[in-house]
């Protein structure tokens, strides 16, 4: 099956799925999942270099190609999407519009695959809009606030997209082609730095908006926080990666080191890249600081997505072989980790109907598997071995230290340790501690919901121990883009990952960990067996106090003895009064919102479909101006 046929048939199928789902949404969901499984097998079977034509627009061929990058990004995306599709088979019964969800998620899959396959800027744009629109229509299926979230999502996304479109036309006007590799070739020889930089930044702005990089990150928290719970996994795990893909295309497919070689800024990195790195670093700071003080667990991980988007951008932006590979590998790690975390949260919300950390607690007693999934996901997200998250962070650090970028390194370290802090908050507040009395009848989610989580966790663990299957396509990608093609980082024959300053052996590290654990376990079993303290005693028997250290006093209400509000109060206090970017951006957002309200009042009836109309109108206007 040709690539174009695949995509178009997917789009058609999505409509079919809608009607099937109208009859039985579960059948639609299962069908969706089967299609997803097929897509995965299809993607793994494809050969690099396959191309196919989609049609012609304004004399330009719209083309799809299958590259290392397409392979890698599609595989990661599909892993996330298919897991969510499996998860949704059960989860959808808590939703109001399952049929539409089924349709849009498949449509969105098609759109994202199209983005990864696109060989030229306009194809990329078309599929981009398909993906964004369909995802945007899923977002308001959540609660009431979600409507507003969808609007903000749309506005922010559109502002990035239009800049991208403008950049694309600027490139077309100057070089007469829309094909990415053609543009890259032309740009290398183009003497005008200003126009090159303009094209570069305009194209990148779509990625900046989509992956929630500062200053266009505010939508991310709102959209991810308010989207339907399982869909947040897709949003954060997969859709954000569209942005990373576009950023990678702009920075790497257009060889920025050579294109902007005339404006080196620091340590051989051009000013344009450095600008992106600075944006990424700012995102890390904002994302980390804001995530630490969130009470809404989904908002918290949404902010962590901002920070991790920053890591990816920093890694890719250095254009160092280590940094590039680290950044691209981080796409995989963050996708898996964020997807698992959001699915775990969706499970929690599915059972308890709240996403406020301060209202939860002690769910480990009731949902141990969800807890384990979350635990391993955060180990990966915080970048701790033996999960895969560490490898990418290690590579990014290597690049930063090698380049001597100490301030950026400082921010990266800050984000890394900060990630410890914020991922621990839901762990402590939601899963550990005391179980509130109202949740005493909560049960573990059914296997259909935890199997996808555990699968992703196992994949992440395996990749953490044996990362070479993922590193190989990334190395291929690096060769494609010509970043230090002779250097080999993954040395699978010696089980080593080599950096500029030494190497390490993931298998050995994992084994050491196992050995340490075994010794600890032997020590543990050698000494007297413990008596169990029943933390659930107040639930089982009326009038039984919580039998842990209380200073000798008696307490019978578990939720009063569970520390989950303002967990890092001492640290939060340090920056609660500082003028924050968040507030400035909120003001900006409010301004845009007011403006939107005004425009809204003049032109629109309140419906998302109006957006579709305006998009098409804008496209027409833009095209009309050009021609």
């Amino acid at each position: 099956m040709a690539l174009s046929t695949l995509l178009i048939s997917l789009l058609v199928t999505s409509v079919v799925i809608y009607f099937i789902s109208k009859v039985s949404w579960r059948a639609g969901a299962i069908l969706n999942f089967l299609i997803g499984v097929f897509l995965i097998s299809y993607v793994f079977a494809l050969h690099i270099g396959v191309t196919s034509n989609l049609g012609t627009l304004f004399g330009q061929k719209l083309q799809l190609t299958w590259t290392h990058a397409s392979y890698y990004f599609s595989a990661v995306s599909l892993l996330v999407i298919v897991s969510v599709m499996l998860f949704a088979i059960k989860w959808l019964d808590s939703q109001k519009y399952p049929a539409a969800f089924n349709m849009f998620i498949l449509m969105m899959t098609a759109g994202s695959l199209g983005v990864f396959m696109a060989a030229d800027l306009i194809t990329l744009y078309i599929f981009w809009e398909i993906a964004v629109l369909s995802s945007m229509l899923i977002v308001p299926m959540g609660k009431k606030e979600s409507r507003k979230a969808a609007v903000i999502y749309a506005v922010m996304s559109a502002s990035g997209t239009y800049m991208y479109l403008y950049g694309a036309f600027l490139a077309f006007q100057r070089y007469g082609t829309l094909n990415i590799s053609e543009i890259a070739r032309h740009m290398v020889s183009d003497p005008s730095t200003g126009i090159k930089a303009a094209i570069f930044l305009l194209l990148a702005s779509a990625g900046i908006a989509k992956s929630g990089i500062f200053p266009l990150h505010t939508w991310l928290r709102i959209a991810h926080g308010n989207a339907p719970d399982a869909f947040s996994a897709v949003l954060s795990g997969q859709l954000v990666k569209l942005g990373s893909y576009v950023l990678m295309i702009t920075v790497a497919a257009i060889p920025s080191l050579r294109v902007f070689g005339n404006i080196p800024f620091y340590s051989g990195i051009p000013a344009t890249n450095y600008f992106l790195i600075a944006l990424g670093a700012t995102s890390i700071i904002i994302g980390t600081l804001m995530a630490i003080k969130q009470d809404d667990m989904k908002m918290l991980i949404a902010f962590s997505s901002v920070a991790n988007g920053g890591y990816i951008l920093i890694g890719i932006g250095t254009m160092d072989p280590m940094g590039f590979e680290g950044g691209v590998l981080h796409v995989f790690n963050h996708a898996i980790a964020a997807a698992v975390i959001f699915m775990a949260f969706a499970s929690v919300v599915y059972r308890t109907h709240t996403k406020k950390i301060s209202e939860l607690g002690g769910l480990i007693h009731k949902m141990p598997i969800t807890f384990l999934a979350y635990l391993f996901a955060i180990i990966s997200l915080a970048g701790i071995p033996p999960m895969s998250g560490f490898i990418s962070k290690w590579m990014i650090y290597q690049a930063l230290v090698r380049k001597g970028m100490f301030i950026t390194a400082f921010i990266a370290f800050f984000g890394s340790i900060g990630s410890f802090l914020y991922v621990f908050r839901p762990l402590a507040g939601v899963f550990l501690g005391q179980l509130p009395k109202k949740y005493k009848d909560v049960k573990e989610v059914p296997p259909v919901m935890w199997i996808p989580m555990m699968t992703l966790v196992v994949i992440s663990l395996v990749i953490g121990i044996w990362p070479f299957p993922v590193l190989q396509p990334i190395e291929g990608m690096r060769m494609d883009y010509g970043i230090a093609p002779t250097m080999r980082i993954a040395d699978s024959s010696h089980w080593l990952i080599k950096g500029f300053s030494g190497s390490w052996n993931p298998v050995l590290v994992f084994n050491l960990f196992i050995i340490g654990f075994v010794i600890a376990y032997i020590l543990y079993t050698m000494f007297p067996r413990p008596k169990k303290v029943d933390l659930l005693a107040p639930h089982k028997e009326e009038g039984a106090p919580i039998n842990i250290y209380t200073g000798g006093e008696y307490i019978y209400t578990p939720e009063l003895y569970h520390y989950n509000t303002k967990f890092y109060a001492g640290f939060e206090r340090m920056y609660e009064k500082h003028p924050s970017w968040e507030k400035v951006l909120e003001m900006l957002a409010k301004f845009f919102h007011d403006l939107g309200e005004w425009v809204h009042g003049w032109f629109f009836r309140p419906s998302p479909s109006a957006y579709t109309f305006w998009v098409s109108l804008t496209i027409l206007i833009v095209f009309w101006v050009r021609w």
Partner: protein
Amino acid sequence: MVAAYKALFNLVVAFFLVLSLEGIGRKITARIQRRIGPPWYQNFIDLFKALSKHPFSNGWIFDFGVLMALGGTMATAMVIPMGSAFWTPFPNSDNFFVIMYLFAVGALGMAMGMVGSGNPWSSIGVSRALTQMLGYELPYLIVISSTIFHYKTASIHKLIEMQRGGWNLLVMPLGGIIAFVSLMGMLGKKPFDIATAPAEIASGPMTELSGKYMGLLHIMHVFAIFVEISLFVDIFLGGGNFGWYLVKFIVVWVLAVMISSVLPRFRIEQMIKFYWGVPLGLAFLNALFVLLGWTL
């Protein structure tokens, strides 16, 4: 196979060295406080006594957290080189960042297990401990990064070999001092023992520990001290034979104990402000010197 023996030897040295040093530290503190103090082997007795008791377990995550803490820290201690390339168990994997992040497994396990005990005092202690990490790790990582940039290697045993010409402490004295200040925070010595402050939060994370859990976490703490001080000794105090390594280790420990015994503890945000003030500034200054090549 030789590597495995060396790793095992690491654990044995760490256990006996640090436990006796802890006892000696208690003795030194006692002398400063004008008393006699316990015998130097008191901590061995304390440890085995704790292990022999019949403890309480607050659920499986409590057990798992303790095991993860001990296992992760032991794994880290096995990678640490002890003062020379010969005493490096795994020359291919002694990368600094690997060690730092492997070390975090223990911290995470401990935090998880202790919060899993369901006690809010533990939670407060853990939240303080994690916040503290944000304070002391940053200057430390910047200093070590500049060291790595200077010597172009992150491999600890290579760093040791590179210091043949002169100790790193003398090559970049600023960095050495900052790293020592950070080391005090890592060791949880006063004024940075906010996480376990007994008068405030009832010994923080350890609140619910009884019997062998206390013992196992004590062992974990022993290995953690070994890792932290060894890293400092290896990176800043140069190489030498095993005896020299021990001497340096003891000197660093005694210095830390003596400083800590006459200082009260900070409040949590004071500590962050302290580390993000002068030490972080000096760490960046050190990095700037390294970039400019102004090393001694």
